[in-house]
């Protein structure tokens, strides 16, 4: 058993941290958010040079074939820096492509080289966190399919040049079977994207598909059998946002602790008040418990035991989700008014933590998933 990062992981983390301090500080980030694109091509190149794009790509496609714990280390640092680049979207995309890697080797190589950005267009207006709730259709037509429908709140949907899209080739809207996955150029004919800001400094888009024609070659996995792929890749993404959230919470804890040491009221630092000390201890514990669960999830996302993977990942989404809520709200309360201003980094940590479960499922969603695992009555 070993809970330390490997030497390589530590090295990459350190390099990444230094890069963020130099290239992606508060002001730089603000400028990127305010820009028309909402993301930074320079930052993308910079991250690619550090090896972040090649990291999750299989070695066969010019990548490094990173483990879950490698990604844990990276996401934690990206969290501390609150990066708004389409990294998670792209990495999740890579996971989809990996399920059918030889077929999609070219795109994987492009990602590894920093030349492609991917977004995953899975959610729809009615689907909430249930990725099997797919109304969008893909109709077989000659040597391909014709897609019609609308995907909503697709994170970085307008910043990607490739989209991974779920559509129904068979079955009723909430059937688990009959769902297919396609990868396509984001500017394919019939696709229109409506880009907007998100409250946590990112971008998302609603994407309309009107008679979009794709080839059979764009399928990921077999037609109609995408659900197990979506399930496993969503868990991968969950583990990554847990790691990211741990990084944000660590930074939130540190900045709050620092504030309690320096802010003076009633002729003493406010950290001298015992009621606040105990609450800070509780915040520390929240971060450590969340870190433990995020580490466990990262270690299990490659597991062959699908039920154990689901249990661990949903357990992590529960525990990290609770911590994200508590740590974020408490940090603002302990900062008082100053934490309410957009000038303070802690406000941005808070916003990101607030949106922790908005894409991959909130605490209740994962409680439901956790308690509906067949082994729930026995597990411990």
């Amino acid at each position: 058993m070993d809970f330390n990062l490997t030497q390589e992981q530590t090295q990459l983390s350190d390099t990444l941290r230094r890069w963020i301090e130099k290239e992606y500080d508060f002001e730089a980030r603000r400028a990127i958010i305010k820009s028309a694109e909402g993301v930074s091509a320079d930052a993308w190149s910079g991250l690619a040079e550090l090896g972040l794009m090649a990291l999750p790509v299989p070695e066969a496609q010019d990548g490094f074939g990173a483990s879950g714990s490698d990604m844990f280390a990276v996401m934690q640092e990206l969290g501390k820096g609150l990066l708004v680049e389409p990294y998670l979207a792209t990495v999740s995309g890579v996971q989809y492509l990996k399920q059918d890697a030889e077929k999609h080797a070219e795109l994987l190589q492009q990602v590894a080289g920093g030349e492609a950005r991917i977004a995953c267009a899975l959610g729809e207006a009615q689907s909430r966190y249930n990725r099997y709730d797919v109304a969008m259709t893909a109709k077989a037509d000659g040597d391909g399919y014709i897609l019609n429908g609308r995907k909503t709140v697709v994170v970085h949907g307008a910043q990607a040049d490739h989209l991974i899209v779920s559509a129904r080739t068979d079955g009723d809207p909430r059937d688990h079977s009959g769902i297919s996955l396609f990868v396509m150029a984001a500017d394919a004919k019939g696709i229109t994207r409506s880009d907007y800001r998100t409250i946590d400094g990112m971008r998302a888009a609603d994407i309309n598909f009107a008679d979009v024609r794709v080839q059979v070659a764009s399928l990921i996995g077999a037609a109609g059998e995408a659900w197990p792929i979506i399930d496993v890749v969503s868990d991968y993404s969950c583990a990554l946002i847990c790691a990211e959230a741990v990084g944000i919470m660590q930074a939130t804890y540190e900045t709050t602790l620092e504030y309690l040491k320096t802010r003076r009221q009633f002729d003493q630092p406010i950290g001298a008040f015992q009621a606040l000390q105990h609450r800070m201890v509780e915040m520390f514990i929240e971060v450590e418990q969340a870190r433990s669960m995020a580490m466990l999830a990262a270690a299990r996302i490659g597991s062959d035991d699908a039920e154990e993977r689901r249990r661990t990942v949903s357990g992590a989404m529960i525990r990290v989700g609770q911590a994200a809520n508590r740590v974020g709200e408490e940090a603002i309360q302990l900062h008082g008014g100053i934490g309410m201003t957009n000038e303070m980094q802690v406000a941005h940590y808070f916003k990101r933590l607030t949106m922790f479960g908005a894409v991959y499922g909130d605490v209740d969603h994962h409680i439901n998933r956790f308690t509906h695992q067949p082994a729930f009555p026995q597990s411990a």
Partner: protein
Amino acid sequence: MNLDYNAEELDFRAEVRTFIEENLPSDIQAKVLAHKRLNRDDYKRWHQILHAKGWVAPAWPVETGGAGWNPVQRHIWEEEATRAGAPNVLSFGVNMIGPVLMAFGSDEQKSHYLPRILSCEDWWCQGYSEPGSGSDLASLKTAAKRVQEDDGEYYVVNGQKTWTTLGQHADMIFCLVRTDNSGRKQQGISFLLIDMNTPGITVRPIITLDEDHEVNEIFFDNVKVPVKNLVGQENMGWTYAKYLLSHERNNVAEVGRSKRELRYLKQLAMAYTSDGKPLLEDPLFARKVAILEAELMALEITNLRVVSADDGKSEPGPEVSMLKIVGTEVQQRLTELMVQAVGPYGLPFDAEFLEGETEHAVTGKDDAAPLTAAYLNFRKASIYGGSNEIQKNIMNKMILGL
């Protein structure tokens, strides 16, 4: 023990309800109900409608132009107004500086300012907090030095105030300033009325985490204030400030507003679905709503117990701190559950829609678009007006005596 309104109170409620139905402008009501941001004109318009009816100042005596209502009537008014989606009448004039002037102001100050508060000719803001003095208000540093000039005596004010709510719209500010440094920090504070158009005043927006411009920093650079704008006696300002804070209890529990928001939350949870079913039918979500509803039911009674014990004369007790704590917790939890109710639709941030610049949200989900901003904004509720930690300190001192 009788928890029902009597006939007289029921009549009053009916009167109030009818008036609101007939007079609340529907565009303002729509903004309030939809959690959109109000502008200066929205506030003024509603204020002037109430002024015309004589209802803008529920607690003021009739002879000063107030409604002269008793505490239960005021509670009914607040409940009905907020329930219907009326904006709050801004506190700074009617509930804050008004009562202070009535108690401590000169005759000239009363006759000049009180009518202008009622008519909204003067929009007031508050100059209490400073960057260095948040919870520890008495440590304030903004200095006022008394000087004799050719045309009379003045205070020359230098310093900075902060968290000045809607100060960008204000005509007047009431300020705590330091006129003496020699004694305890609570001594040597004076209470000044300052025209916002005086040279040397700079208003700088503070953009809050929801990207709203609601609060400001105000800088005073050799601002000359005539001595007749001193309230009461020099160096006695802390007494007046405490008086004001103790009267800042008006509708502190916000029960009416929270009931309205609870209904809205339920509507959302019926409209938004998971797995094809309304979210309100999900036992886990329904549970959270039920717990909150029970808390709010209890708060309503707790509030009424405090209200009905209020004879309108004696100082409000530390129970007001309890109303503040529970009231803000309920308000915050409501915004939190609304964000949860809309799931992924909590993510988009549509500033144009919030400011009323576009008719519909970019996502098409007009009901969801303002909610996360409202949640973020409402984190202030447990911080301003004496943070909930300060309220607990007060309750500990006044009730528990530990």
